[in-house]
């Protein structure tokens, strides 16, 4: 009895606030805009999304999200290894210090970069000491990329770190005893074993990066449009909820598919890695 009541209340809730909203968005995406002359079911919004100009936005989003993910991986993997190999005592402190910035409101952190990258920002002030003319860093693709890497780097480092600390040291020692040099051991043992962490790191960075609109809005000055901005614009400025819904549905399917592929790649251990965040 108790079991029934306890689960059914959440079932009702999730039906109301998870399923129905998505169904409504799906419904909007398959109906044409008012005043367009068409009524009833139509694929018009999806067709429009397939126009080159919007595909370009999609491609750009995927591309920059990949770039951000890859940079996070390149920068983050060595960091995770260093953290994992630290002495137990300093390690906890180091990991905590690593996480602290994440606890700050992420808009504040992104805003901080605006003050640094501006034409009269700290970076240009610093460069002027070396007689470098003020450069334009802000309002560019580079600024957006930097904002992504800065905000999402911990999402890459922590899962890899968790996997690395759980790794069986005997295995590595055995390999070394058998004459493997450091590079071989890393290539043949450490890296393959850490893959689940890498996979979950990839999805945890890629996902927010591909759908962000805040970082682009603040750091690109409305110059550089990603798929998240496109959705925001349709809902808040242009008032075309149908087209916005179609893009949202597309983004949702894209993310869920990527996640399931990633999960399969991570073979279930990925979940453990992502739990390491908390």
């Amino acid at each position, binding site marked *: 009895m108790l079991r029934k009541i306890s689960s059914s209340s959440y079932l009702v809730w999730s039906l109301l606030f998870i399923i129905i909203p998505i169904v409504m968005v799906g419904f909007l995406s398959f109906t044409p805009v008012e005043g367009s002359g068409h009524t009833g079911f139509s694929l018009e919004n999806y067709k429009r999304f397939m126009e080159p100009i919007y595909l370009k936005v999609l491609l750009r989003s995927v591309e920059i999200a990949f770039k951000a993910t890859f940079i996070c991986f390149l920068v983050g993997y060595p960091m995770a290894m260093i953290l994992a190999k630290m002495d137990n005592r300093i390690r906890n402190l180091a990991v905590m210090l690593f996480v602290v910035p994440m606890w700050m409101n992420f808009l504040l952190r992104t805003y901080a970069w605006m003050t640094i990258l501006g034409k*009269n920002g700290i970076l240009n002030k610093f460069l002027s000491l070396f007689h470098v003319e003020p450069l334009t860093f802000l309002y560019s693709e580079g600024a957006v990329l930097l904002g992504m890497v800065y905000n999402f780097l911990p999402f890459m480092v922590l899962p890899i770190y968790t996997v690395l600390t759980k790794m069986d040291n005997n295995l590595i020692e055995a390999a070394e005893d058998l004459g493997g040099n450091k590079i071989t051991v890393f290539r043949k043992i450490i890296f393959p074993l850490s893959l689940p962490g890498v996979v979950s790191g990839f999805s945890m960075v890629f996902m927010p990066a591909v759908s962000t609109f805040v970082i682009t809005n603040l750091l690109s000055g409305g110059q550089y449009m990603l798929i998240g901005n496109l959705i925001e614009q349709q809902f*808040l400025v242009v*008032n075309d909820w149908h087209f916005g819904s179609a893009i949202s549905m597309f983004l949702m399917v894209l993310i869920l598919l990527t996640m399931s592929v990633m999960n399969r790649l991570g073979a279930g251990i990925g979940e453990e890695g992502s739990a390491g965040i908390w």
Partner: protein
Amino acid sequence: MKKSIVVVLMIALIATMFVGCKKDDQVVLNVYNWGDYIDDSIFATFEDETGIKINYETFATNEEMYTKLKKGGTQFDIAIPSDYMIEKMIKEDMLEKVDLSKIPNYANIDEQFKNLDFDPNNEYSVPYFWGTVGIIYNTKLISEDIDSWNVLWDEKYKGMFTMVDSQRDSIMVALKKLGYSMNTKDVAQLEEAKQLLIEQKPLVLAYVGDNVKDMLISEETAMAVVWSGEASTVIQDYDYFKYALPKEGSNKWFDNIVIPKGAEHIDAAHQFIDFLCRGDIGFKNADYVGYSTCNNETLKLIDPSLIDTTYAYPKKEWINNFEIFLDPGDFVKEYDRVWTEIKAN
């Protein structure tokens, strides 16, 4: 034991919070206005005089305001849209009628701002400010005298100027440069304007809204397409800025106060409109926002040196080829599409 203390504390905390936001009989007027478009010290004056509290929210473009009102979810008592948007909202029955007999200070409004085409008998709106769109530039960084939109396509100013993040205004710049009307309903002309703006994009530093003043003052940008009041505020503090009214023509606009349909505090809304039309209050706002007042009593208080400047009260002959935006009706979908494509490119 410890646990129960925590629980009690939690409940106490929540209880005080709910009491804190409990609504009493006091009327709260929901006002929806452009960012940085009122001297907010007048809210306290209004509350002292009438006991009505102001709940204030801002928007960055007419389109954003329209979308928010259209979709519902938030009920405002006062909004301040521009000309073409008022026309559209009247057509779509989104506005309450204004009872001018409840607004004695309406008499202060200059005749030339009454009964304009978008609201022929001022049944729905009361004038607030008016102004133009032009180019402000920093003479320390730009030596040439600017008088045309063409500079915004000049390679030598690459990365040195900003555009407005507002669809009608940005498209207007391109249409005017091409010599077309900014109210065009010709798809071919609109497409041409779109191409021009896409061409221009690599030169633009950013599309900005309310932060343009800071960007100009801190020399983040040397030049910007702005609404005249922004220019006025900047120039009054930093005299090395100039404001150009482009010779190809531009936009002359009017922002009026309206009461959105379904407003809950219609009487209070009228009181607030009357308050805004008072000479001294109008002056406080004009002084803060820098735009040109529609109010004769306020005009008497304005610094005479502002008269006949490009940015505040321009001479009639300087702006006689300026147009007022009209509501394009259903054709707005084309503008939306073009703007989305420009931004997406």
